[in-house]
């Protein structure tokens, strides 16, 4: 190896790590600056530059205030209720549908698959123009129940994760159970559903993050912000008179993304594999 080649090699290694550090910095900076500001007192926030570290990392006043002002206790409760209901319903509905579509051949099987696929091409925001009318007619606006029903309905991605998973479960398992006299319901609930666990975890994480973070429809359909805030919409409290108290706002933002952060740290592997298994393997 000549010296030139060696220099080249080290330069490349340097460039590699430099770019990684640089883009990680870019990715983290907005959030970290927010966290820094969240720990500052009012006077500190006004006097110091935003990138100057706070005097005390134990100043949780802003968090407490933001939590109370934005009614976040209620918001977390609502979000948990929504999350649990939506996940339970969509797991059952999704796995059942995937089971039928994968195991039974019947006229219309492909049609149903295509109906679900086509639905994904319709941009959600555009659809809300008329979904709003339907929600109004069903009396679902400002109703937690209605919102939950709607959130269950927009679930296509997990159905595909399930179908994919069913394809890898041998049909001979079903057949031997049929020979033993098990009904289709028994086969599904006793044999197949337990086997689906990894797929269920994956789709629950994806769907859960999506539901927790959903703010556009929450904002549209849960208009009663006092009674029906979710974590995402509760942040709207800070629009308006509180709009320039960034130390308070940042505290609210940090609180709202803590659950996602915790989930991310604990389930990093599942999140990655869930994302890729849905998209890569076909």
């Amino acid at each position, binding site marked *: 190896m000549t010296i030139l080649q060696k220099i080249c090699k080290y330069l490349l290694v340097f460039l590699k790590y430099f*770019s990684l550090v640089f*883009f*990680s910095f870019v*990715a*983290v900076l*907005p959030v970290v*600056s*927010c966290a820094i500001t969240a720990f500052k007192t009012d006077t500190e926030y006004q006097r110091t*530059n*935003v990138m100057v570290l706070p005097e005390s990392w134990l100043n949780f006043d802003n968090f407490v205030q933001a939590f109370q002002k934005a009614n976040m206790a209620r918001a977390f409760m609502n979000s948990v209720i929504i999350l649990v209901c939506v996940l339970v319903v969509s797991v059952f509905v999704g796995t*059942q549908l995937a*089971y*039928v579509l994968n195991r039974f051949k*019947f006229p219309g099987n492909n049609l149903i698959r295509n*109906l679900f696929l086509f639905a*994904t091409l*319709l*941009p*959600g*925001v*555009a*659809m*809300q*123009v*008329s*979904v*709003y*009318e339907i929600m*109004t007619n069903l009396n679902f606006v400002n109703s937690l129940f209605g919102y939950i*029903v*709607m959130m269950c*309905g927009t679930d*296509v*991605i997990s159905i*595909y994760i399930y179908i994919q998973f069913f394809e890898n479960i041998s049909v001979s398992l079903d057949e031997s159970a049929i020979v033993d006299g098990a*009904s*289709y*319901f028994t086969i*599904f609930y006793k044999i197949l559903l337990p086997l689906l666990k990894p797929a269920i975890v994956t789709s629950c994480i*994806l769907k859960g993050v999506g539901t*927790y*973070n959903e703010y*556009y429809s929450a904002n549209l359909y849960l208009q009663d912000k006092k009674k029906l805030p979710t*974590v995402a919409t509760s*942040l709207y409290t*800070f629009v308006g008179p509180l709009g320039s108290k*960034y130390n308070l*706002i940042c505290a609210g*933002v940090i609180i709202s*993304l803590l659950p*996602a*952060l915790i989930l*991310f740290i604990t389930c990093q592997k599942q*999140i*990655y594999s869930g*994302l890729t298994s*849905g*998209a890569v*393997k*076909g």
Partner: protein
Amino acid sequence: MASKTLAIKPQKRTFGQWATSRDGQKVFVMIAFMVIPLLLLFTFTYLPFAEMFGFSFYNMKYIGARKFVGLKNYVKVFQRDDCFGALKLSLYYMAGSVVQLALSLYLATVLSFKVKGGSIFKGFMFFPYLINGIAIGFIFKFFYTRGFVFDTVLQWCGFELDNLPYWLKDQSINNFSLVGTSVWRYFGQNMVLFIGAIMSVDGELYEAAMLDGANRFQQFKYIILPSIKTIITLNVILSITGSLSAFEPPYVITSGANGTGTYFVIMHEIAHTQQKVGLAAAMAIVLLMIIFVATILQKLFFKYVFKSADDEDLNATLKRDKKLAKMAARKAGK
């Protein structure tokens, strides 16, 4: 669950005649398992779709009298400056998604090989994807405020504050600022997808290439790129349709002020603030048509491109279509 209680019935009824009972039960299971999802799909996707089509011919609000106006709404969509003109902003988002794809492809390639602290870098870059939209709105309002985070960092790099523009007010730059936030949010997610694709490439290929003396760049060009081109294609298609329907960054950060209102932001405003539902529905239909045409054209284009490549058979095309829809679902879910 309703289906569980229903399950008992056919068993009782059909124990006698084995052959017919299986078929009967099959039908029963199918109905029990499919009725809820199909009902939901119908109520929240196809019924609104049909209704929207109907709305677009009326002058109406959500509540109150409706007046049939024929194609007037469609004419308005093309005449009003704020409607159709807003599609021009999509160009910014398209440019952004090109940057995003290139960046995530590069980072994915780097991270697919042995890198110290690789998973930490990956985690840092991916996390923005998990933050909810409204929080992102606040974070970036804060980030771009005069003299705050972004300006400070630029000052560290030697820029003068006086020479820096107002990132969200200056009309020559604010769309770039918004596109930047969208790139910031999604490049990590794209990167993870690409890493997944690269990882599924057979490891022996690299070893063989190493033995043959191929360098990293050659490995990328001749092994990685060909094997993940399907997923890249998909992302290109999605990014174009995604750019046409760009919504979140302007909606949460600037509310469409100062010339940042994309087509959907304006449509949202017309539908839910001004309550001109008919016009908004017409806007939605027009954009849907454009998206369909764009998708079909791109599919044909890529089909043509891939026809020359020998490793793409009909099956793969079908698979690609499926994947496309799935990824679209994911994007829509965002």
